[in-house]
């Protein structure tokens, strides 16, 4: 594809880049710069001091401190039977991210299979709500997890009934991995389902006609087409869980600290050089991963025709289907999903209508109403928070959709350096919320002096910008695979008939990839609604509080006694509002579907 003469697209690329420079590269750069400069001079000493510190790099610190001894050390280690070595903070963080990724794939993949290949009542609804975990503030999820998996939680109650247990899960790595699966398995499900639904049925049928077994057809035709999405999801999960912070803090405490937990503590202590150095190393690692993945994805994608998707089989189809091992497996899977996903959310809803002593109550919802009608200064009112969340979400969506599509168009071009360009455009995924929030605060919010004028960006504008930056990579992650699957001949035919590149994109390609576009839109919206860290940093007044911010403030309100009642009530409202929003996005978007 050539861009030649295509002004609109060029403008789109320029606008995307400009936005990114202003609200991402400049603020983040200002933080990371302090990792490589001391007193205005370039230096590697902050990096070296972190890499040489066994606390951070464990046994690997000798790679920096005494590289000459490494071969001898390795030999001695092998001789003594390869005992476990100290991993350091980075090593431990990578280890838990790896476990979390494996768990997320294990939980998410069967879900994609179920949603893509089977028809059952409520399938569309289930598919829509797979996005819900993205909007749930981690403190709420942590509370739900404790209520579900804690010492006196629901799981142990259930196990007790059948004479098993109790299981001690709280404050363990296992529970953190489970919680990470709660957040990221739906991502795996979502991305893989979208890819699986786009598999061309004609090619599968051709393979079968040529004598391939169903397994062979899956391996040779279907798998290559869903693998990029699975890898995307895995890389994203690894990056997210590598940067994991609030959940680790709430469910595992300091004993299971990750790099991000440590980075946050350094920020709190205003040890900004060390924090920036950790941020730089973390960013380099994740960015490297994203780049490696993008190269891989580019090799994987194969063009396909405009064909139809695979037909879904009914989940329940007569009595015979009840003894089908595949269906029995899915049934067992459903039970696991109920415990893992519905359990914590149900505990949240139940806590919002029961007192600590187990009595039914509506006083927490009455509390929300009283906050709404309160005239007191500094009261966080629920309704403006709901409205703000929806408005910011819509604003972020309006900004993130075009940005994401522009990035996808760049990604599907085969030009030199387009992988690198894509990596640069996808970089926000690899930067932790804390680094971005800190950078934005120090530059845009406090203001920066340009030509003698102090420029500040505060309030809703900054929040929408931050949310859009966080959300657009999800648009492009959804749209890119679909876009590259569109038959080039369609575009070429249109262009031969006189359409320019932009017209091809808007009139032909985008309608063809509508499901992916809608999925991306839902992601961008979900991320905006659930975003907390940068919102709270950027929203100084109550006027720009969102639902998660309101929820966090209600956690601090103890006027109703020793419980999370008010916060769980707000959490339930958050859950309801966002469920409705996603179902609406999905249904409205669905009208374009073939």
């Amino acid at each position, binding site marked *: 594809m050539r861009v030649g003469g295509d002004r609109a697209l060029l403008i789109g690329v320029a606008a995307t880049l400009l936005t990114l420079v202003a609200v991402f590269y400049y603020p983040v750069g200002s933080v990371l710069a302090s990792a490589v400069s001391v007193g205005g001079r370039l230096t590697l000493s902050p990096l070296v001091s972190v890499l040489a510190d066994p*606390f951070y790099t464990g046994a690997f610190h000798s790679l920096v401190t005494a590289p000459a001894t490494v071969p001898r050390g390795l030999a001695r280690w092998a001789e003594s039977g390869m005992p476990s070595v*100290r991993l*350091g*903070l980075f090593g431990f963080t990578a280890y838990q991210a790896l476990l979390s990724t494996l768990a997320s794939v294990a939980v998410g993949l069967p879900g994609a299979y179920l949603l893509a290949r089977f028809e059952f009542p409520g399938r569309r609804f289930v598919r829509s709500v797979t996005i819900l975990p993205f909007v749930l503030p981690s*403190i709420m999820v*942590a*509370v739900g997890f*404790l*209520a579900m998996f*804690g*010492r*006196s*939680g629901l799981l142990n109650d259930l196990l007790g009934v059948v004479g098993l247990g109790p299981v001690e899960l*709280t*404050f363990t790595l296992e529970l953190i991995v489970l919680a990470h699966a709660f957040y990221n398995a739906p991502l795996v499900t979502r991305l893989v389902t979208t890819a699986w639904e786009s598999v061309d049925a004609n090619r599968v049928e051709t393979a079968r006609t040529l004598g391939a077994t169903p397994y062979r057809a899956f391996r040779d035709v279907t798998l290559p087409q869903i693998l990029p999405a699975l890898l995307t999801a895995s890389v994203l999960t690894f990056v997210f869980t590598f940067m994991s912070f*609030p959940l680790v*803090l*709430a469910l595992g*405490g*300091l*004993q299971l*600290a990750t790099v991000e937990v*440590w980075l*946050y*503590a350094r920020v*709190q*202590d*205003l*040890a900004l050089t060390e924090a920036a150095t950790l941020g730089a190393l973390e960013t380099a690692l994740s960015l490297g991963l994203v780049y490696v993945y993008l190269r891989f994805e580019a090799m994987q994608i194969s063009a396909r025709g405009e064909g139809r998707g695979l037909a879904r089989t009914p989940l329940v189809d007569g009595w015979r289907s009840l003894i089908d091992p595949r269906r029995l497996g899915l049934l067992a899977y459903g039970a696991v999903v109920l415990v893992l996903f519905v359990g914590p959310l149900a505990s949240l809803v139940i806590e919002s209508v029961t*007192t*600590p*002593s187990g*009595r039914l109550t509506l006083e927490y919802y009455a509390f929300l109403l009283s*906050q709404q009608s*309160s005239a*007191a*200064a*500094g*009261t*966080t009112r629920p309704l403006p928070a709901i409205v703000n969340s929806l408005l910011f979400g819509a604003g972020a969506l309006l900004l993130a959709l075009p940005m994401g599509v522009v990035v996808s168009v760049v990604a599907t071009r085969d030009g030199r350096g387009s992988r690198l360009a894509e990596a640069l455009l996808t970089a926000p995924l690899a930067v932790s919320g804390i680094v971005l929030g800190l950078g934005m*605060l*120090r530059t845009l919010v*406090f*203001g920066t002096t340009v030509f003698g004028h102090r420029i500040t960006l505060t309030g809703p504008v900054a929040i929408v910008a931050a949310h859009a930056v966080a959300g657009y990579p999800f648009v492009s992650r959804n749209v890119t695979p679909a876009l590259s699957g569109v038959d080039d001949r369609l575009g070429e035919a249109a262009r031969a008939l006189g359409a320019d590149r932009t017209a091809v994109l808007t009139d032909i390609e985008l309608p063809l990839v509508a499901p992916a576009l809608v999925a991306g839109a839902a992601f961008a919206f979900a991320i905006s609604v659930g975003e907390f860290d940068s919102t*709270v*940093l950027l929203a*100084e*007044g*109550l006027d720009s509080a969102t639902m998660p911010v309101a929820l*966090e*403030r209600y*956690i*601090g*309100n*103890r*006027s109703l*006694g*020793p*419980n*999370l009642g008010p916060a769980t009530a707000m959490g339930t409202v958050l859950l309801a509002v966002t469920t409705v929003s996603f179902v609406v996005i999905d249904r409205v978007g669905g009208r374009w579907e073939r």
Partner: protein
Amino acid sequence: MKRRAFLSRAGVGVTGLAALAGCMGDSSDPDGGTETTDSGGKTGTAGSSGGTLTVATYSSFTGEDTAGNWLKSAFESERSDVTVEFRTPDSGVNQYIQRKSQGAPIDADLFVGLNTGELVRVDQQLDDRLFAATSERIEGADSVKSSLRFDPNGRVIPYDTGYISLVYDEGAVDEPQTFDSLLEPAYEDGLIVQNAQQSDPGRAFLLWSIKQQGTDGYLDYWQRLVDNGVQILSDWEPAYQAYMNEEAPMVVSYSTDQVYYHGEDVDMSRHQIGFLNDQGYANPEGMAQFADAENPELAREFMSFVLSEEAQAEIAVRNVQFPAVEGVEPGGTFGKYALEPPEAVTFSYEELSGNVGGWIEEWARQIASN
């Protein structure tokens, strides 16, 4: 529970007070000691300056039925030409340290809710002065209990204090008596504390343990606590929630716990206060006028209003903290349920200065590499 809601009560107990009392009004003030922004002199409660007073504080100090909201209404009704506005940045005083160091406008007159450790951080991070020395010129400042005054340079005026203690379930464990007893098998997997890096009660508990075990012995003590199954959670809220979910029978909290948690359907046996070694760690909260305040005079008038007897009693009840001014007794439910430790301990500003950051980081490294 908001990170800052419960905390911010550091302070000066019995040990530090003689030294501190001697420092009040000392001319060795590194800031230069004298306030230059306006004419000076004590400001009376019936002041004359009007306009908008911008108060930076933590978010749970404001809102329905809070101390902050009571102060706003009461001050505004006393002074018809005044409006009080709140700023509640989530990063607390760090927000203003960074603003100052970046040359950004401060946009507030007064900071409410500062403790000793935070003041040490302010002074360590900034060469320019963030707060003005005002204690000489605020009516009522001399009635603040001398044991609570923690700023040797007269900038921060305490307005209330809390005491860190254990809260325990007497149905599950015997009352823990000493720090050393927490290492016993009877208390295995029994204690939840907060992360001293970002939680005030957690920080106060760590400092208290350093007071007890010494700077040479505290890391070893904590290693043995970890071996006995202590859990270190991020902050007061998740820690207390885990305690309520019966994950452990003891949690680090405040000696005013029962003021919140009394009532007919509350099991008070789960809200017992344990004063280890018959002590509690005092954590006073203070207020200070920004040096760059647009309305410094009004800020000082508000500060002396906060120290008035009526305001002190209201703050104690609504913020669930002990008053800072001598002779104020809130009475009522507060008087009945708020417990004071037999002995209050704390580190002084001088003792924390130059040390607190290192103590906490070494502690955190020890825990995180377990």
